[in-house]
């Protein structure tokens, strides 16, 4: 194992009375595509801002690309590409002008400017919008412009704070395609997301809850951690079915998922006939009832529920 490119030890950050990040130990290897997931207010944004050198550390320590965040925050900045959660490009400037602005600030060699900007514009699918004002772009294109701007100096590390929040599914898919390409090229990426399906695309996932890192493992290992199997039911009387399922033996929990219910049980094979029987007995009907694969989303909801209890 090589030494981690991002490392925090007992890192804490307080905002007045609240502790946003609480004794965080994070270790990210070079080349990792690390997904930081967790509910709103878990401390994901604060963690990313600290790693980008934008917030002071209250306790503990952290280092990025070999530079201590408290001692040399400015030495970290040329190495990272940080993308804030909010759109933070200049609305009055065109796509191209925004790219040039950040190229200047990151001292991109002038000889490479033209080649890099045109490559990034193509990469982000913005070539046709080069001259358009940034505030006249769609939400998805704005995110891609922001990503292009953070890539202009070819950083070793990307810190992306919920880059796909508020973006339509097609743009989200395109965005993750770009991240996968960068990952394949060797860039270390730390991306926070509230979407669990995105966590499945990462090479490593960290679950944050109440400022702490609860789990940190590859997605498959996290799924494996959850005891039990999943049964999906599409009942007609949604509320009554939910109440009934909660009383049955072997049922760990019931999650709602659109019109269907996701039921976490100890053994799907064993419980499936018993659930059918209980439905018949209570005169409850359903459209479908089948075992389903356990997905990241259920895994996280289950983990967080355990924590809340």
């Amino acid at each position, binding site marked *: 194992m090589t030494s981690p490119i991002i490392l925090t030890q007992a890192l804490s950050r307080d905002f007045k009375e609240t502790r946003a990040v609480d004794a965080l130990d994070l270790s990210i290897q070079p080349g990792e595509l690390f997904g930081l997931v967790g509910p709103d207010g878990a401390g994901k944004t604060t963690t990313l*801002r600290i790693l980008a050198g*934008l*917030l*002071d550390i209250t306790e503990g320590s952290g280092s990025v690309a070999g530079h201590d965040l408290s001692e040399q925050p400015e030495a970290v900045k040329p190495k990272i590409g940080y993308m*804030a959660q*909010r759109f933070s490009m200049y609305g*009055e400037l065109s796509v191209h002008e925004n790219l040039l602005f950040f190229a200047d600030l*990151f*001292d991109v060699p002038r000889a490479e400017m033209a080649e890099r900007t045109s490559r990034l514009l193509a990469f982000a699918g913005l070539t046709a919008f080069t001259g358009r004002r940034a505030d006249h772009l769609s939400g998805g294109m704005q995110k891609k412009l922001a990503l292009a701007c953070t890539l202009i100096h070819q950083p070793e590390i990307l810190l992306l704070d919920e880059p796909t929040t508020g973006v339509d599914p097609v743009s989200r898919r395109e965005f993750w395609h770009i991240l996968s390409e960068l990952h394949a090229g060797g860039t270390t990426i730390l991306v926070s997301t509230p979407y669990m399906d995105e966590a499945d695309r990462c090479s490593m996932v960290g679950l944050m809850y109440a400022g702490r890192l609860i789990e940190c493992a590859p997605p498959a290992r996290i799924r494996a951690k959850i005891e039990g199997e999943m049964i999906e039911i599409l009942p007609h009387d949604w509320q009554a079915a939910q109440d009934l399922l909660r009383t049955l033996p072997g049922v760990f929990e019931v999650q709602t998922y659109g019109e269907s219910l996701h039921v976490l049980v100890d053994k799907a094979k064993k419980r499936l006939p018993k659930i059918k029987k209980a439905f018949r007995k209570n005169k409850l009907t359903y459209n479908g009832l089948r075992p389903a694969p356990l997905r990241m989303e259920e895994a996280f909801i289950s983990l967080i529920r355990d924590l809340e209890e």
Partner: protein
Amino acid sequence: MSFRHLWAVTRKEIQHILRDRATLILVLLTPTAMLLIFAYSLTVELQHIPIAVLDYDRGATSRDFVQQITAGDDLDLYAQVASEDEIEDLLMRGEIKAALIIHPDFSRDLLALRGMPLQIIIDGTEPESGGFAVDHISWRAEKFINTALSDQLQTMGLALDTLQPLDLRVRTWFNPSLKPRNDVIPGMISIMLGFPALSVALTLAHEREHGTMEQLMATPITRTELLLGKMLPYIFVGLVNVVLIPLFAIAWFHISFNGSFLLFFALSAVFLFSILGVGIVIGVFIRTQAAALALSFLVIFFPGFFMTGIFFPISSMPELVRMESLFLPGTHYAIITRGVFLPGVGLDILWPYTVMMFGLGVVFVGIAALFFRKKLG
């Protein structure tokens, strides 16, 4: 310091000014428009002030005198009264702003060169009109004495010159027409140039509000590069105003410009540096545009009006305020603008004020750079 970083910020800011119509209007047109409005509202020339005259002398000389006093547009003879009670009554009803009482010995004393026994009563609730009346009565009285006594002296076989050494009255120089605009407008330029300073304070708060500051802080730009890069475009804009405002003042208000324009331009650049320093300090400490706007009015505009000696002489301020006014760039600039516009003085006289302004600017920018941190929250 990297000039590439500096220029990147400056260029970005210029693009912002040119493309954001509200900013463009604020920095380019507002100063001249405000000058127009203020110049008219603050320097309204008083005219046709109604006065009453109580003439105890009732001689030919006193009649001539009264006629002289009220010959112009400044003072109107509202009534010739017979008693002081009537004066009180007219003053109380607000029909006159001042009354002139001519003593019984007026003609005799005047012609005997013993002075001019006069009494002026003014309405203390309206000191501007009252003061105006006193000034204008004195001014006209002086003229009257000159003509009246020249005849008298001639009949006595003396030259008018013989009286001159005795004339110790204060004369108004440089602004002989006594029009307030002549000195108020050059003084007000300092206030008009507060608008670029306000814009600088707003632009930092704007970046914070729009989240672009967060992105900026994640780049390797240094604090000085960022702050100076922000200031430079507004210094350019301010200098456009430095050309526009005097042109306007000369063309519209027919103000004489007696000094060197090049000197005025150079010293204005120094003033802009220091007043923008105030703006940048506000921008460093204040996080929202609304608060930055409020504080700019409190720190740039109000003291600019009341403490830099434009309207109220600094010499008549309490000691503490006088000290404070020394730390306002506008105080020094007001002296410079008046000096360059009216008597046309040069750097030999104005250098201490220039040094003071520059020093203040360095202090302000220093404070801003010291306290500005590339951190959120």
